[in-house]
């Protein structure tokens, strides 16, 4: 049995800012080892785990899920040890007041801290309508300035502190479900493939630095040269004020110039055959996900995107529905089974 709750809990607790994903990689390496044949870490810090297929052509499917998270780095140490921060990746400054974080010190210890607030008693009327900015947000570690300067420097990483929580009806809340939840889906697919015959080699790429420009996926694809690549990332879920991908109703399948029509159609067909629900997700402009950079590597790579519906993206309380994760495992496993020697020829444009 694949323990979703345990895996999601553990992987989302880990520190892994863009460019500093090594703790996440160590954890995945350990957990996925029994399901795959080999693995390595590449130059830009993406982790590649390979499950060999039985086919003669050694065709390669790359499944890319990024494992970095948004957060901050220390921008300056102020008087009394308060910290000014600079975001790494897109964080909404409006959600930060009174939000708890961890700053990682030079010994890799996690120091708890909180974004300061001015209490309502002291807020001036004109400040009530002011939107907070990174000029006005500072972190309080409770440590003395001396100690702060000893353990923390400009550039020390900061992540949200947020515990993985079960809500009602298969919903879960936590930080960095974007996109570690998809990494866990990849692990579940690898687990599933242990008992499935498949022709192609499957390269599970746990990519780095997506949040700062989808860097890890592109360089990994360059190295692997896959025949087909599927990026898996979170998509905007339906929530109050936004009509997006409904939660619990299966993945989004990306459709648009970024995605190869044949793969999109095959994924849809697999879903239909297995009665797996899905939502078509039109993406008029390429980019934003790993699929954006993978598609244009070398002479081009046939690419598709599966989206896991997620609410409150880029906050410490992102919400997903576990049913959707399981649907994606089913869909990808079914798709991988269809990959054979002939499949390659079908990818040529007519």
């Amino acid at each position, binding site marked *: 049995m694949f323990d979703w709750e345990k895996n999601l809990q553990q992987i989302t607790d880990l520190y892994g800012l863009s460019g500093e994903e090594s703790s996440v990689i160590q954890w995945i390496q350990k957990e996925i080892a029994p399901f795959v044949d080999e693995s390595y870490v590449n130059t830009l810090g993406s982790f590649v785990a390979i499950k060999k297929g039985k086919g003669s052509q050694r065709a390669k499917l790359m499944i890319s899920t990024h494992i970095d998270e948004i957060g901050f780095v220390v921008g300056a140490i102020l008087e009394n040890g308060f910290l000014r921060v600079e975001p790494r990746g897109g964080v909404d400054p409006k959600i930060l007041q009174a939000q708890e974080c961890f700053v990682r010190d030079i010994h890799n210890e996690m120091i708890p801290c909180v974004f300061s607030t001015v209490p309502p008693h002291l807020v001036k009327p004109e400040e009530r309508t002011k939107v907070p900015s990174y000029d006005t947000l500072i972190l309080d570690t409770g440590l003395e300035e001396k100690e702060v300067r000893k353990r923390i420097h400009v*550039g020390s990483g900061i992540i949200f502190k947020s515990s993985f929580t079960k809500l009602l009806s298969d919903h879960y809340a936590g930080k960095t479900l974007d996109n570690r939840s998809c990494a866990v889906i990849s692990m579940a697919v690898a687990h599933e493939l242990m008992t499935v015959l498949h022709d192609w080699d499957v390269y599970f790429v746990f990519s780095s630095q997506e949040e700062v420009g989808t860097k890890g996926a592109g360089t990994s694809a360059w190295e692997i040269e896959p025949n087909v690549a599927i990026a898996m990332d979170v998509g905007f879920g339906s929530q109050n004020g936004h009509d997006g991908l409904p939660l619990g109703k299966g993945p989004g399948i990306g459709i648009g110039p970024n995605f190869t029509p044949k793969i999109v159609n095959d994924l849809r067909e697999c879903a239909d055959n297995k009665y797996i629900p899905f939502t078509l997700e039109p993406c008029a402009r390429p980019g934003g996900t790993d699929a954006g950079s993978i598609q244009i590597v070398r002479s081009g790579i046939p690419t598709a995107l599966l989206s896991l519906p997620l609410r409150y993206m880029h906050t410490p309380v992102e919400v997903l529905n576990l049913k959707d994760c399981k649907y994606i495992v089913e869909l990808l496993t079914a798709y991988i089974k269809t990959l054979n020697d002939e499949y390659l020829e079908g990818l040529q444009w007519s």
Partner: protein
Amino acid sequence: MKDILKQFVEISAPSGREEPIQKAIRASIQPYVDEIRTDSLGNLIAHKKGNGKKLLFDAHMDEIGFVATYIDDHGFVHIEPLGGHNPVNLPFQRICFEYGSKGTIGFESEILSKNGADRKEVSFDTLYVDIGARSKNEALSKIRIGETATYDSPFVDLGNRYMSKAMDDRIACALLVKLIQTLQTHHHDLYFVFATQEEVGLVGSKAASYGIEPDFGIALDVTATGFEDTPKGLKRVPMKLGAGPAIKIQDRSMIANHNLNQWIQTVADQNRIPYQFEVLPFGGTNGGVIQTTKSGVYTTCISIPTRYLHSPSEMVDVMDVQNTLQLVKAIAEKEIVL
């Protein structure tokens, strides 16, 4: 060092028109390198052979500038930017065109008088260059459409600080030239890229790096200073003059490689070279494109703190320059182990 720097910053060579600076750099390093070539984008690539992995040092040769696009009936020259200019900084600056004509950037008084001075109205649509021509014809005899220009702002030695246009990034060119001239021993196979068109989007470096396929990349560039350097400096910028070279943590183009940074810190500590960390909320360097070359390159950037970036009076600290040279030299001499 000062002589090379003075020579380099006073050469006018904006993005896409780097030949004058390229020639000067080539002349000063040719005897000291094993191979030297210029590629189709104008990058100057020098190679000092070594047995180890490939280490690439990058500095960009181009500077921000202007290009003449239109001459009106009064003989005023209208210009467009090459690289990142804030038009608000431009009125009444002197500039020098490619073939020697000089002028000042003018700006309609009507715009100034509106609400005192509504600086929002200042843009390349409202700015023009007055080259002292009495007529369109006179202007046309001095300037050709398509001619580029740069600030007319020579090198000044302020004692402990240097001031000039084009410190960005000729200071790094000068540092690399000095490094090439003085480097005695080195482990790595060293490539020095003097890149073109950084200011318009990291253009030259991308191609150069693709051709070289380095194992390690170190960009040398300038960085801004902030609230600890000048009284009303940017709150989100921690760097300051005189605190040593800045090791890049992040900017808009790149998260520098963590392990490479740690190795550089060790080298600096061993050699007692002061350094600071750089977190920059805006801008990018060639490091950003070197990093994503092919299957990826371990990359960082070492920055020389510079005040008043992209102005005619970019200012660096002499100690920072010396310490940066010490640091890149110490790096070039050693084997990088990550």
